[in-house]
């Protein structure tokens, strides 16, 4: 078990519990009562801790090394899943996966960022940072789903699009831009769920849809708190402040009406009970797909464009000179 720094109180209780269990096995005295009491104490402490997490703590949880990733969810939710590879242009990106899965009999195109589960795999998956071919693979799969009238579910979990030399050569910006444009007018329903990190354009590149959700212990922002700290504070040391300033938690995002809902996680985070988390996610996706499927296709696209059109906060001022003709400068 991996404990985060703010989980220290739980970690200590957990140690005591382990000791107690070991002692119980050796000794003749029955300590089951104490063990139960300690277990309850752990539960209560965890609930208390998790009920009031800061922005930075949510960021930490979203990156928890034991947190379930896209392929885990797909394989747990679907009886059948056929993974599909390649963008048909350049290569197969390992940081974005996708394919058709069967969700209780309904075929769904699943697409998501994929992080590695161990040191070797983390390298292989490029830490969930996609290259242009990842976004182009995603688009190819969406178009495939559209042709066969299957809904699309995107699972978002990335620290950002990969900032590499080859990524620029192959048009990282174009690939993301194209996805935004095409996802806005895709004929089939699209549901997007932030299951971990939602960093910047790399997340949004598979993040335009009819419904956008965030799991409880995730974040969504224009920039990671670390990069924000380094640019605006000119130091890497202000990540906690940056996380607060960016207002990147699911609750903030819901209050701002930038997302449609928050998906509850088991107490202790998705990693504490991955199977339960997959169940909750599945229930959620099925419910939303049912609702979206009854909307007329044209109307659904209009609503999708309007939904993003409403995003933005500004003021209007009275300007006397507005709409008046002006002489050119030279």
């Amino acid at each position, binding site marked *: 078990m991996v404990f985060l720094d703010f989980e220290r109180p739980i970690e200590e209780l957990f140690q005591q519990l382990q000791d107690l269990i070991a002692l119980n096995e050796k000794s003749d005295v029955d300590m089951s009562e104490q063990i139960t009491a300690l277990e309850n104490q752990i539960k209560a402490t965890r609930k208390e801790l998790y009920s009031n997490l800061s922005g930075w703590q949510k960021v930490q949880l979203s990156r928890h090394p034991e947190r379930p990733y896209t392929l885990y969810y797909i394989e747990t939710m679907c009886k059948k899943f056929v993974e599909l590879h390649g963008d048909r242009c350049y290569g197969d990106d390992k940081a974005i996966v996708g394919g058709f899965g069967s969700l209780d009999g309904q075929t769904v195109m699943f697409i998501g960022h994929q992080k590695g589960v161990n040191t070797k795999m983390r390298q292989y998956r490029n830490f969930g940072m996609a290259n242009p071919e990842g976004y182009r693979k995603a688009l190819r799969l969406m178009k495939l789903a559209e042709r066969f009238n299957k809904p699309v579910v995107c699972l978002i979990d990335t620290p950002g*699009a990969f*900032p*590499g*030399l080859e*990524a*620029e*050569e*192959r*048009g*990282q*910006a*174009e690939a*993301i*831009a194209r996805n*935004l*444009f095409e996802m*806005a007018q895709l004929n089939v329903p699209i549901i997007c769920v932030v299951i971990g990190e939602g960093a*910047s*354009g790399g997340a*949004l590149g598979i*993040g*335009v849809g009819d419904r956008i959700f965030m799991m409880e212990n995730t974040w*969504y*922002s*224009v*920039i990671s708190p670390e990069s*924000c700290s380094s640019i*605006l*504070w*000119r130091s890497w040391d202000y990540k906690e*402040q*940056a996380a607060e*300033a*960016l*207002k990147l938690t699911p609750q903030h*995002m819901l209050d*701002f009406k*930038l997302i449609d809902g928050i998906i509850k996680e088991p107490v202790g985070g998705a990693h504490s009970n991955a199977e339960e988390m997959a169940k909750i996610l599945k229930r959620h996706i099925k419910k939303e797909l049912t609702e979206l499927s009854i909307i007329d296709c044209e109307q659904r696209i209009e609503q*999708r*464009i309007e939904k*993003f*059109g409403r*995003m*933005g*906060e*500004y*003021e*209007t*001022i009275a*300007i006397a*000179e*507005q*709409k*008046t*003709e*002006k*002489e*050119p*400068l*030279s």
Partner: protein
Amino acid sequence: MGWFKRLKEGINTRRKKVIPDGVWYMCPDCRTAITSKEHAQNYYVCLTEDCLYHTRIGSAEYFDIIFDGRRTYLFDNLVSKDFLNFKDLKTYEDRLVAAKEKTNLNDAITVARGKVNRLDLVVAAMDFKFIGGSMGSVVGEKIALSIDYCLEHKVPFLLISKSGGARMMESAFSLMQMAKTASRLTRLAKAKIPYFSMMTDPTTGGVTASYAMLGDINFAEPKALIGFAGPRVIKETIKKDLPAGFQTSEFLLDHGFLDFIVHRKDLKQKIGDLLHLFRPAKEKESGEETEKVEVPVKVEANKEEKVIKKEKT
């Protein structure tokens, strides 16, 4: 710096700038000094033949270069507000006040409608001087409104990008402007109204990864920095020096992401040509006339160019 004074990059005031004699401009690229007057007359482009450094200019200068004469400003009444109470070393509110004071602009984009060689065009041009040309809610909304305007009036749209990317101080709101603008552009495409995207120095981050790369025609000024990630970030990631010319307009053209590169002195003519070529078929006969009309060039092109033109005809 001695006897010459370097002009600040990009002049954004809407009033005519009078440049006194004896003020000099030094090209930051080739270090050649010319008078500021000459520089302005040459569209703020370095006169050295193999340099052609395009100094960053603002929306007002682009409108001067592009439009035939009068122009109408649109959506000037939108202003940013610090709705997140964002504070780093400064508050966003203070940054906004300072930017407005410095630039005499309301935000990082200005929209105007006018004519180019007698054909209608809406131009939205970004100003780098306003918080690095960063894209926040106002930039996104003005682009969305411009698209609606073009749809309603059936006028082509030119967007001149010049931006460091999304405006961090608006957090996820600025991120969502990418989706907002890109999704709105689908309506323009559906209505078959041309959208031209011009990228200037610099165009990076979320701006490149949304509307800038989505033109029916994508083009750029010479030697502009265009990319998704900034060069410093890439260098830190790959821990190697970047090759010469990486992420320049020429690099992007070479890799297939631009239709062409245009010198600022040819910009108006090029846009005029595009507008002409993109006209719907039914307008062709009546529009044929405009082709013959010689449009006087506002600022004198250099002599050599004239000679070349004569030789061609």
